[in-house]
């Protein structure tokens, strides 16, 4: 299991940041991702492996209209 924004989801072996966001249907263009407290730059999302048990924060930087 991993935790994404406080919600638990089943961990999958090939989970990258990109795949986690896709699993959550997080399509917003400006998200700051932290995995276990470490910021992962957007350019690394497709390769950064998310380990089992990780705590992922995907902060959508949007404060509305």
């Amino acid at each position, binding site marked *: 299991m991993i935790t994404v924004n406080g919600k638990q989801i089943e961990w999958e072996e090939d989970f990258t940041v990109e795949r986690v966001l896709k699993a959550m249907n997080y*399509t*917003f263009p*400006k998200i700051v991702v932290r995995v276990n407290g470490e910021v992962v730059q957007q350019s690394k999302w497709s390769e950064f492996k998310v380990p089992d048990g990780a705590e992922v924060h995907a*902060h*959508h*930087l*949007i*404060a*509305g*209209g």
Partner: protein
Amino acid sequence: MSGPIEKMRSSRKVLAEYHYEPAQIERGYAGKTLYVNLSNHKIEAKDVTQQMKDIFIGGKGFGLWYLWNAIKPETKWNDPENEIVISPGPIAGITQYPGSGKSLVVTLSPLTNSIMDSNVGGFFGPYFKFSGWDALEIQGKADKDVVVFIDGDQGKVTIEEVDLDPSASHLLSEQLTELMADSEQDKKNVSVVSSGSGAEHTRVGILNFSFYDLRRKTARLKQAGRGGIGTVFRDKKLAALVVKFSSLSGKSNNPADPALIAKTGVKITREINKFDDTQFRMRQIGTANLMTPMNDYDLLPVHNFKYGSHKDAVGISSEVLRSRFTQKMPDGCWVGCALSCCKAVDDYVPKTGPFKGEKVLVDGPEYENAAGLGANCGIFDADYVIEANFYCDTYGIDTISTGTIIAFIMECYEKGIINKEITGGLELNFGNAEAAMELIHQMGQGRGFGKIAGQGVRRLKKIFAEEYGGDPAFMQDIGMENKGLEYSQYQAKESLAQQGGYALTNKGPQHDEAWLIFMDMVNNQLPTFEKKAEALHYFPMFRTWFGLMGLCKLPWNDIIPESNATSDSPEKIPEHVQNYVDLFNAVTGKSIDKDEMIRQSERVYNFQRVFNLRMGFGTREHDAAPYRALGPVTEEEYESRQERYDKQLKEDVGINPEGMSTADKVAAMRKYRQERYETLIDVVYKRRGWTENGVPKLEHLKDLGIDFPEVVEVVKNNL
């Protein structure tokens, strides 16, 4: 155009004339305000006191203070003593930082019967200030349509009767610009405030503030849209306000530290140039960039806020709307705005109405137009959205309220509360674009069922109950208004914090106080009541500040600096908060910090709450929300998201939904959500320094320095 202009020119009849020496702007303030009475034609200057600057700052603060002094607790929106106050604020008019051309308009609302404020762009506010005035008070009522001209070049104010047609705002703005300008080039120095025929026939009238577009050679429009301010404007027989000021420069505000303003402006302009194309694309799409993500995250209001997404929403997606915008260059509503969110559809040819077959310019559509007029009414047709947007603007009616009104009517129609006989033949099912467009024309022209629709959701609920036997309780649940103002266009069901962000507001459910949906629902940054309450303290105060200064909110969080990724509080955009502190200090020469910034807002915000109390509102009962804003009202809503709601019942409420009927599940969910909303109110009031009934505590007002005797008296009467 020359025909109507010559007619206007030859018909001008001056009713009152006032000459003045334009004040030198000193550190963002003119030090004078202008009072115009349309009943007795009195025109006079008032001094801006130090107390006004210290406590009320400017913009909305000045508007509230003048309105407080102008009216009595028993004053109604259409009494002559009601005022429309327009004030730009001390930072308004700088040209080095994006979004700095705003004005705040304050009046007693025909929708809420209480205090309304609306933030609007265009050139009027800055030009008016540089003409020597920090605020404009319009009081009284004229006998016939009049225009107030403010000539900042000549130092002259006149009230005039002019032979004109005030029914179509886009034409009137164009004509008065031409009348006032000496040449084509001079038109950029003129700004017009006007409304339209819809403002005469509905309670949802708007004000259009113009800005002249030299490239298109036409007057464009920005709206003070919420709460029926245009209805008050036309009730006063005011056809237009016109200002002319020809000496704009980068130092017109005479700021204390121009170098700091320039440095701060260069910094954010570089950010915009570097990141906008990969962030929110404000320069390409404007606020319509929200259409696709709102649908993706189940937040786009569909069918009167029943749902948050729709399979056909692709018809009005961000990319579809982008493809309809005709300009391919940055386009802002004030000089120097690098964020340039204005968008337009040139040469659109309406298929209906008085401009059918003619080429018109449509400003927008923006997110709220497409979401409200389109998705919320089940209409996913870009042409419809563009045309409805155009007619709402030129008739002078609020796109947001109009969208929510039509959506409510459509649900009542589908539920059989009203029928074709009542609507005059309009088949107002969700998705019927033709009927919806006809209803907009009827609202704009004061015809048929449109005259009823234009009364707004709160009054429609009463009419439908009393005259057509509609169930008041059901309509209370689905009628998306609070305090009498229609909800703006976000689905808040899954964000408790945003439910408060909408209903625990001073003027009603407009998202300019707080927009916490992503922080709460998606980011899960507000897991406790206390954290939600802190957000419902901080963000309304922070956002209020824009309205004190003459600023636009968009450059705060619609462009994100690099530093934000490693910030401890990215949702606040700390680097941009510091920019605003720097701007205020650089313009005024003061030395505030980010905490004093919030205190500045807190004074005005609490004063507005007390003002609501004074007018008979402002207590807990007025912060109640329709249940549609909190959760699923009907079984079809519940079943459309059954997996989500069943999971919530099991995990959050502690009820096993297996074997329960949908009706029972709806009832259990309702009990849970309403209790949570009441708890939220308790915690928010406590954080804001208010009693359990929502009344600001006397010690809190004293701490803020707004314990004036007349304020204390109002509060004591409500304790």
